[in-house]
């Protein structure tokens, strides 16, 4: 059974065009780009081509792109660089709804003695810019705020935030891992200092990412060793994956406009149908400012893991913010920060689409999900007409 893969905020399929570009560099062209001989040295040019393609997607200059091993490395590198660049400043600002790559790294720094402000969000997952303004001071080394949320798809006002911080000359990093390739990101217009992206969220393979560092920004490397990436990120280049990331960015740039409208149409169809067919559901997050591919829906009175496993029987892949699926007993920190009631968090399901999803697939999901929810609600002691608490 071919899965109906609606978990594209977790990871995406490698595009066939991307794989084709990569294969020669995993087979015969296995050289090291740092070598003096042509066999290795010729790969250097391929890496620079990939860099130019990544830069083009972002409206950046190629030399502003550093290749890394993943989104988490990009995030950690950016924050550490901010700290190393302004050693006398001991204050960091981020949000309560960041991905663990930023959130747990910030908590780690808090334990090391840094003062960290975690900005709150409202019930729709929107950031309060007033709270950001209030928390800024002369001690702030870096502000790291995500572009779009992985769980709800809510997009933060990065243009406004970056202007606020540029005026005050405070370093600004954004984790744009969920945004790049899904919505237009133009760094010519956005005064962001650093930006993280990850390959496997936009149809490149896992194990490659990039960090954008604006020209003129102070930068300290996180991984120290050889001269690769002009001394900004040591370690032999992941040649094939970097070439793959370049190709994936090229594809994203060519198709972005088309995909935004295609995906939002499909997503809206799915969402509207589920809202119609299932009683007692709610959409989590600001539907006005959201990634086109994401919807986060809470089904009251049923538990997320049970929904996912029933969906799994039909080959439908999605994820949940419920405690049972988080790997701990704590449900989603994002939905909790938004004040979503626990009852709704336990039954929250995230569907995230990609260019490879079809309308036929969505139609199938629309018929299956309400059936599963109905069955599980019959099993549940809770519900509108049931006596239990």
């Amino acid at each position, binding site marked *: 059974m071919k899965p109906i893969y609606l978990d594209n905020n977790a990871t995406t399929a490698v595009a066939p065009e991307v794989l084709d570009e990569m294969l020669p560099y995993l087979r015969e062209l296995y050289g090291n780009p740092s070598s003096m001989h042509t066999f290795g040295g010729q790969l250097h040019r391929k890496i620079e081509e990939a860099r130019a393609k990544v830069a083009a997607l972002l409206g950046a200059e190629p030399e502003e792109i550093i290749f890394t091993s993943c989104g988490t490395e990009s995030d950690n590198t950016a924050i550490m660089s901010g700290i190393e660049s302004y050693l006398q400043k001991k204050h960091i600002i981020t949000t309560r709804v960041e991905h663990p790559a930023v959130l747990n790294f910030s908590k780690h720094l808090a334990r090391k003695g840094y003062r960290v402000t975690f900005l709150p969000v409202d019930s729709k997952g929107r950031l309060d810019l007033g709270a950001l303004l209030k928390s800024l001071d002369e001690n702030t080394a870096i502000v790291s705020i995500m572009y779009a949320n992985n769980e709800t798809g809510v997009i933060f006002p990065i243009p406004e935030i970056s202007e606020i911080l540029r005026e005050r000359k405070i370093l600004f990093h954004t984790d744009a891992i969920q945004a790049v390739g899904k919505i237009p990101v133009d760094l010519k217009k956005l005064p962001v200092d650093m930006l993280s992206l990850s390959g496997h969220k936009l149809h490149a393979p896992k194990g490659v990412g990039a960090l954008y560092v604006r020209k003129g920004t102070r930068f300290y490397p996180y991984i120290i060793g050889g001269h690769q990436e002009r001394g900004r990120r040591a370690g032999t280049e992941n040649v094939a994956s970097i070439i793959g990331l370049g190709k994936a960015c090229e594809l994203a740039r060519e198709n972005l406009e088309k995909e935004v409208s295609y995906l939002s149409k499909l997503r809206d169809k799915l969402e509207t149908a589920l809202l119609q067919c299932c009683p007692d559901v709610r959409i989590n997050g600001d539907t006005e400012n959201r990634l086109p591919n994401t919807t986060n829906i809470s089904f009251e009175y049923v538990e997320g893991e049970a929904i996912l496993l*029933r969906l799994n029987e039909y080959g439908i892949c999605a994820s949940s913010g419920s405690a049972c699926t988080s790997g701990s007993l704590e449900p989603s920190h994002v939905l909790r920060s938004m004040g979503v009631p626990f009852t709704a968090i336990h039954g929250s399901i995230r569907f995230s689409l990609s260019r490879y999803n079809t309308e036929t697939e969505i139609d199938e999901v629309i018929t299956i999900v309400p059936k599963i929810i109905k069955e599980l609600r019959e099993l549940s002691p809770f519900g509108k007409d049931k006596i*239990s608490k």
Partner: protein
Amino acid sequence: MISITILYPIKSMWEYTDKVKDLFLNPKNVGEIENPDAVGEVGSIICGDALRLTLKIDKQTNKIIDAKFQTFGCASAIASSSALTELIKGMTLDEALKISNQEIAEFLGGLPSEKMHCSVMGQEALETAVANYRGEKKPIEGEEKIICKCFEVSEDKIRKVAIENHLTTVEEITNYTKAGGGCGSCIPDIEAILKDIWSIKAVPERPLVPKKLTNLQKIALIQDVIEKEIRPLLQADGGDVELIDVEGNKVIIALRAMCVECPMGNVTVKGIEEKLRELVSEDIIVEVG
């Protein structure tokens, strides 16, 4: 060196046995018995799983004629509930009460260790239902000593489950009862209970703080612990705390920001006390000024 102190258990949702999958997908005895002779309700929607068990009992023989369940929870919670009803049908109440959570897990061909609490929930529901049938009183609220406030787990339950299942570590207790799986502030209490039950050291001794601190040293250390260990964690959840004064072993604090209105305020204060006892001095008492 980065040392991350929070351990993330490995996900195991796909490690279910075929029996669990089968009873999850095709559960038996779902629903509610009309005019039941006994009802057992455990868990809550907030905690993430809950079970309502209804029984039909033959008054002459004390045999369970029928059992039905309604469960809110994950696949293993649903399968455990179904297994329980299969197991107890036809048994007398006394026979049924002898069923341990291990037997429920064995009926299912085993459960992932993180999901053992589902089998415990089944057993508890049965006990509650039988007590309900026999007209036994539930422990009055406040009479039970609640150890884990996040998941409302009592000391009695921790002791019972630990002894019945030979549990010796906090992690196992969390897997079987959920206690300690939320904010984590009750972990020292669970360690103490385990130590008491098994008379063994459940955890290696922590490095001891020098016994004799001068008053100045002590205040400085308290300040340091609050700044570096406590405030960052509270701030991560939108809360904050301020040190007001230190009088002997009494530390007076004020909760700030979101902690002020937080219903978990007492838990937070207790957590701060635990941390200060651990890192400064064992006799510290924290009070809100």
